[in-house]
């Protein structure tokens, strides 16, 4: 809000500056394009019934050029009302009574035909607004009634009851822009309504207006009033008095108060929408029609001039809309869907419209700056959830809190897991919950001590352990270097890491029988659920280098995969059995009950890690939130079978057959169980918009292009169909159903632009930006104007003595006032 306000302000200041500059220029060279006529010529051109404003002057003296400039500008608007403007040069040979003597040469005359209507001293016509206002005022003498007392108003009102409506306006002075706007409206509507004008504040006060700072326009609904003792209903126009606003207001006064409709609100259009005003539909049913109509009329009166009110007859309506909605709100903006609301009293409806109007207005004010969402609303899901959950009591006592004093002692005394976190950091605190869940699950069963250090308190401890970001989990074991946990920050994965670390990998296997038990999973019965594979390295006792490499790899994988090593003399029994040459590794897949063998000749530790990691990937895994990253590393398009629940064995068989036949080598085949991974629904919606029937097969080309292809739902998932489809897909014969958006992740919302705010504050008073020549006049004006002046002027009856100086300096006051106002809000 703040920056926008400031922006709009500085924009205004700039505009002020520009118009001043323009004036400066004009003062210096008055451009004169008015017809210049001699008196004789002038009078010969006058047409009967046509109004003409003529300015008689002696010679082109510089002192009159300012007025001429304004007059010149008023030429166009006056012509729009059929009034011509002329400048008459009083040459010496042709004397005319309008050519005054030297001292009162500054006069303009308004003629209708040859008849003189009025004469104006030029200082009354101080600018374009004043010229147009005065001329129209003189011409519309009958249409616009000027009054000064409440009695006048009451008389007019009484006279018109049952006959015509009244447009009553107050302006601070004659010749002001507001006066001009009223006169222009009177020119158009003067025959339809009686216009009444006053400059008396007292009059306005007497009809109960509180804020009399500004010009006002009331519409008196006198025509429907038949009982003379009854007052005319009044509607105040709330917008500022400009020609356009008055026009809009008059239009809405002409429109029917309440319309009944029985069609889709989305399709309904009335004059209100064209005028940029919203529509309010009061939903009615046959049973309650009478009451609804009364309510609607009430609302209509309240919203007169602000919105169109319609009674929507629901029973005959064929459009489906929410059962309980009683109000439909339709904005004037095109393409904005209608809103169905439940509003239980009239005030709510009115305030709804008014708040909406308010937004519209500020939009205009803010120079088309769209008010964005609130920057102070948390849009970080982790931060928000942690904050909302902050009052939950966690059983923190299940973990040991370490301090500077106890840290070293504790981690050296027993095998420990340490969580390094920061109490103020959301991600840390979210993970702390999972960590405590691990502690709950391990309670009383583990030899591993679960501890934690709050680095917000013990920053030196954390720094000493090389922890400079959070959260970090490290495992401290006697005689070993601390190991950082590199898995998912969640209960399951951390639990797995801790459990698998109970055994020291690689496990040293000492007999063939033990090796068989190891491979069958019997040896670590309680652990194999954490490791999908068990790896056994086979070495003859002399292969020291190969053994070292394998041991290093086993160490590296500790906590993620179970590894063992066998290098007894009878190792050949095993290598023969599994038909491998040494050195080699055996890989037991417990779930599938299979044992694979891989040769390890001349392979380094890092490569062994890679081999084991790849080998532990499944051929057709169930993809989950936790394991997706591992499969994404393969950088292949995913072939995903979405299934609501367990996978259909036939589908599984079909895909596995294709895998075996190596048809799917260029893909990562996997399936997704929506029961285990509900977020899969979100994925399907992104692909299809509506949830398609399941199971469903899709190929997602994540790494190049982002196309999504869907296996036709009318085909059954069989080897042949699938193979054919994949062939077509490869050949480019299938069209994708979707391309995943490649949008960059940009800042979700803007930040506060403090730099601009600071600039705005230091640029101080806008007057500085105003060109030099105006600054001087400003000073003069301020000197001249006494504080009481303003009041005195306001109380003057007709305001015909308004001078140009007063007007401009007052305008300047306004600008300053606005500045002060803005400033206060900072």
């Amino acid at each position, binding site marked *: *809000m*703040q920056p926008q306000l400031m922006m709009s302000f500085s924009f205004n200041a700039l505009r002020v500056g520009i118009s001043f500059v323009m004036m400066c220029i004009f003062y210096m060279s008055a451009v004169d394009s008015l017809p210049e006529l001699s008196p004789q010529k002038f009078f010969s051109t006058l047409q009967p019934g046509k109004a003409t404003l003529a300015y008689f002057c002696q010679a082109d003296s510089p002192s009159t050029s300012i007025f001429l400039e304004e007059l010149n500008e008023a030429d166009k608007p006056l012509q729009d009302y059929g009034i011509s403007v002329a400048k008459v040069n009083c040459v010496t040979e042709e004397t005319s009574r309008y050519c005054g003597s030297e001292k009162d040469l500054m006069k303009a005359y308004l003629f209708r035909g040859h008849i003189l209507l009025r004469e104006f001293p030029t200082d009354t016509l101080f600018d374009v607004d004043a010229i147009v206002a005065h001329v129209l005022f003189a011409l519309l003498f009958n249409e616009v009634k000027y009054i000064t007392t409440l009695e006048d108003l009451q008389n007019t009102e009484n006279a018109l009851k049952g006959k015509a409506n009244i447009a009553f306006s107050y302006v601070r002075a004659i010749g002001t822009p507001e006066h001009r706007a009223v006169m222009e409206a009177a020119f158009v509507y003067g025959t339809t309504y009686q216009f009444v004008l006053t400059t008396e504040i007292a009059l306005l006060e007497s009809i109960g207006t509180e804020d009399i700072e500004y010009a006002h326009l009331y519409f008196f609904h006198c025509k429907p009033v038949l009982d003379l003792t009854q007052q005319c209903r009044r509607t105040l126009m709330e917008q500022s008095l400009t020609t356009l606003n008055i026009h809009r207001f008059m239009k809405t006064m002409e429109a029917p108060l309440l319309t009944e409709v029985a069609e889709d609100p989305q399709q309904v259009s009335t004059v209100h929408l064209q005028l940029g005003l919203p529509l309010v539909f009061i939903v009615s049913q046959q049973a309650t029609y009478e009451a609804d109509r009364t309510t609607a009329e009430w609302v209509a009166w309240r919203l007169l001039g602000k919105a169109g009110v319609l009674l929507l007859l629901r029973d005959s309506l064929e459009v489906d809309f929410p059962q309980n909605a009683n109000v439909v709100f339709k904005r004037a903006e095109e393409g904005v869907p209608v809103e169905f609301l439940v509003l239980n009293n009239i005030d709510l409806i009115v305030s709804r419209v008014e708040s909406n109007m308010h937004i519209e207005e500020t939009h205009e004010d803010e120079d088309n700056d769209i008010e*964005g969402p609130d920057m*102070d609303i*948390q849009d*970080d*899901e*982790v931060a*928000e*959830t*942690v*904050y*909302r959950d902050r009052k*939950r009591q966690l059983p923190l006592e299940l973990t040991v809190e370490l*301090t*500077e004093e106890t840290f070293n002692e504790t981690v050296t005394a027993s095998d420990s897991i340490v969580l390094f976190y*920061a109490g*103020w*950091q959301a991600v840390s605190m*979210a993970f702390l919950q*999972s960590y405590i869940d691990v502690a709950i699950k391990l309670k009383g069963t583990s030899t591993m001590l679960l501890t934690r250090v709050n680095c*917000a*308190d*013990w*920053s*030196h401890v954390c720094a000493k352990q090389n922890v400079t*970001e959070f959260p970090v989990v490290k495992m401290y074991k006697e005689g070993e270097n601390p190991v950082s946990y590199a898995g*998912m*920050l*969640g*209960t*399951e994965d951390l639990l797995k890491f801790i459990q698998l670390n109970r055994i020291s990998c690689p496990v040293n296997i000492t007999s063939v029988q033990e090796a068989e038990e190891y491979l069958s999973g019997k040896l670590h019965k309680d652990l194999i659920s954490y490791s999908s594979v068990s790896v056994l390295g086979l070495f003859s006792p002399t292969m020291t280098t190969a053994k070292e490499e394998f041991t290093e790899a086993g160490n590296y994988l500790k906590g993620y995969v179970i590894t063992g090593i066998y290098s007894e003399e009878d190792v050949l029994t095993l290598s023969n059995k599994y038909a491998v040459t040494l050195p080699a590794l055996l890989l037991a897949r417990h779930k599938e009950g299979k044992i694979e063998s891989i040769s390890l000749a001349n392979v380094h530790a890092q490569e062994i890690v890679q081999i084991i990691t790849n080998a532990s990937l499944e051929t057709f895994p169930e993809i989950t*939130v*936790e394991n997706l*990253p591992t499969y*994404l590393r393969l950088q292949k398009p995913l072939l995903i079978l979405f299934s609501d629940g367990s996978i259909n064995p036939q589908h599984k068989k079909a895909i596995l057959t294709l895998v075996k036949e190596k048809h799917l080598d260029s893909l990562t085949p996997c399936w997704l169980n929506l029961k285990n*991974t509900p*977020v899969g*629904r*979100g*994925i*399907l919606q*992104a*692909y299809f918009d509506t949830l398609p029937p399941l199971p469903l097969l899709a190929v997602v080309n994540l790494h190049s292009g982002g196309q999504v292809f869907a296996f036709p739902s009318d085909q059954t998932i069989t080897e042949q169909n699938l193979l054919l489809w994949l062939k077509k897909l490869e050949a480019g014969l299938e069209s994708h159903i979707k391309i*995943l*958006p490649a*949008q*960059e*992740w*940009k*800042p*979700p*919302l*803007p*930040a*506060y*632009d*403090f*730099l*601009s705010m600071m600039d705005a504050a230091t640029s101080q008073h806008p007057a500085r930006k105003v060109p030099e020549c105006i600054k001087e006049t400003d000073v003069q004006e301020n000197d001249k104007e006494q504080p009481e002046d303003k009041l005195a002027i306001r109380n003057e009856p007709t305001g015909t003595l308004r001078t140009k100086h007063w007007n401009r300096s007052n305008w300047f006051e306004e600008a300053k006032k606005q500045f002060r106002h803005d400033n206060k809000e900072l």
Partner: protein
Amino acid sequence: MGLSAAALLWGLPGLLLTIALHPALSPCPAQASVPAHRDYCVLGAGPAGLQMAYFLQRAGRDYAVFERAPGPGSFFTRYPRHRKLISINKRYTGKANAEFNLRHDWNSLLSHDPRLLFRHYSNAYFPDAGDMVRYLGDFADRLGLHVLYNTTIAHVTLNKDQRAWNGHYFILTDQKGQAYQCSVLLVATGLSVPNQVDFPGSEYVDGYESVSVDPKDFVGQNVLILGRGNSAFETAENILGVTNFIHMLSRSRVRLSWATHYVGDLRAINNGLLDTYQLKSLDGLLESDLTDLAIVKDHEGKFHVTLKFFLEEGNRSADAVPLPQDDNDNFALRVAYDRVIRCLGWNFDFSIFSKSLRLSAGGELSKKYPLVKASYESKGSRGLFVLGTASHSVDYRESAGGFIHGFRYTVRAVHRLLEQRHHGVTWPSTQHPITQLASAIIRRVNEASGLYQMFSVLADVVLLKENATAFEYLEEFPMQMLAQLETITGRRARHGLFVINMEYGRNFSGPDKDVFFYDRSVGHTEDAWLSNFLHPVIYYYRHLPTEQEVRFRPAGWPLPRPTAIHHIVEDFLTDWTAPVGHILPLRRFLENCLDTDLRSFYAESCFLFALTRQKLPPFCQQGYLRTQGLVGTESLRQRGVESGLLWDYATVGRGDSGQQPGDHGPGQHPLAPGPPVSPFDSNKEEL
């Protein structure tokens, strides 16, 4: 015969030559023709000298400290005269964070040894100077610092030498004539010369350094004190209860530290006299230029204040000298004084430095300090650094560089500069993925002591890596040297940088400011830039500013105009960890500077993004994709669904999507990237 004689004659000079050569070759110090060499020589074993010695020792550098007294901290053996230090020794803060606690421990030096914290040396909030002496002694001993005591360096000169690190050596000569050759000279001699103003009658004045501290000596006396600093008020405080009255006279009006936010100005602990002055209890404060002053002694031995130009009119006896009250019978200082005490502060001792060092006085503000750059290196000779109190010209009357709790950090900054310059050890830094940026800043502004004490002098710097995927974090860099950051730190700043500073509000501090005005504190994040109390300010630069830009920065700005700026709104508890009040606006600022999305996401969201978008937000890239996603718990999930930031996927597409929060389209994650907003980066013209 002739031949042999010739041989003898020929042989003799050779022998003489050998004899003459011998003493020159032997390493006898008495001759002193080859000075002992040290890479680093530190002058003075006060707090700053010892602090520098500590860092040099830890880095394994060749150094020596020279101290004329028999032990460290000799200044504190005598001063302050009334023995009460005004640096706070806050032993309890309610926090365990040792770094944070240093913010409120103004006496400890930096070390790795937690026993060497001042709170183990005194229980007093304003400790006794004797405890400081004891502390400094322990500091030097425990850490085994190389200090040469009883070594008065009488003269320092410059010796040009191509091989020297800086093109010259500093030659130090002690009182015994022993010379030391130093590659780098670190001057930590403090301010040791009492400031004296010369005016007629100044010989009658007692100096702060020698005036009696026994109140009994002032019983029933009229006392005039010249000066209005802490030493003047400390002296007044001591005798306030026994004198008839005390008048204090100084050039300018008193500067209260709680109004100026400068710890060197008058501290509340010493300002008892302000109270009695304002309550009209006879004591008083006056302002006048001391150089116009004259003091005359009358026949009773009492002192009268008069003006210098009265004396110039003629040489008259003391009792005949015209006094101001002769013309102006309500002249304020018309009473006779029993004592006049001068407490006008201290100056740096320039006398031992040869002209060749071009160590000149006259920082812009005061002549009491030697002139140094913002890197604390002398403007006159490369390799000469001024440390400690004497280095205060850099931030005189602004920050804490003249005091232990400030210069312990600037000394560390100088040491880091030297490590890079002479040993190729780059400025220490940590490197992190960009997702840790907000956390790294939040951590520092909440605990860092150096930033807090040396506000607007030392600042943290974040150097962005290419594409802003990672950053390096450098602590406590002298911010006025920002343009020279690459040479000083040995780190590259090619892809933009952030500078994290702490600042008071503009126009908040000042001797005449009402710092208790209504509405002085700011609570709303959008008004953060109007914060008055010390608060973090973050500057973003797309390019490292040039020296010109730093020098000609806008008035009142500690740094050149940045591309964008962020203020973290001031906090009553100086705890800037509020998720929405502090962290969220900071994240938005960083995001808009870097033009990216720095939110954190649960693994499930990352999973969804991974399968429905071609690009992932940094948090998912740097965490989830590396199998380090944040899984979260069920209760957090529930909260997420409640807040509308997470979907309850179990109900998605089950026909009742009407209950979904907000009006997000189907499948559109509520947190997915929205319409692009214009970041700071793209509308630079407008900024």
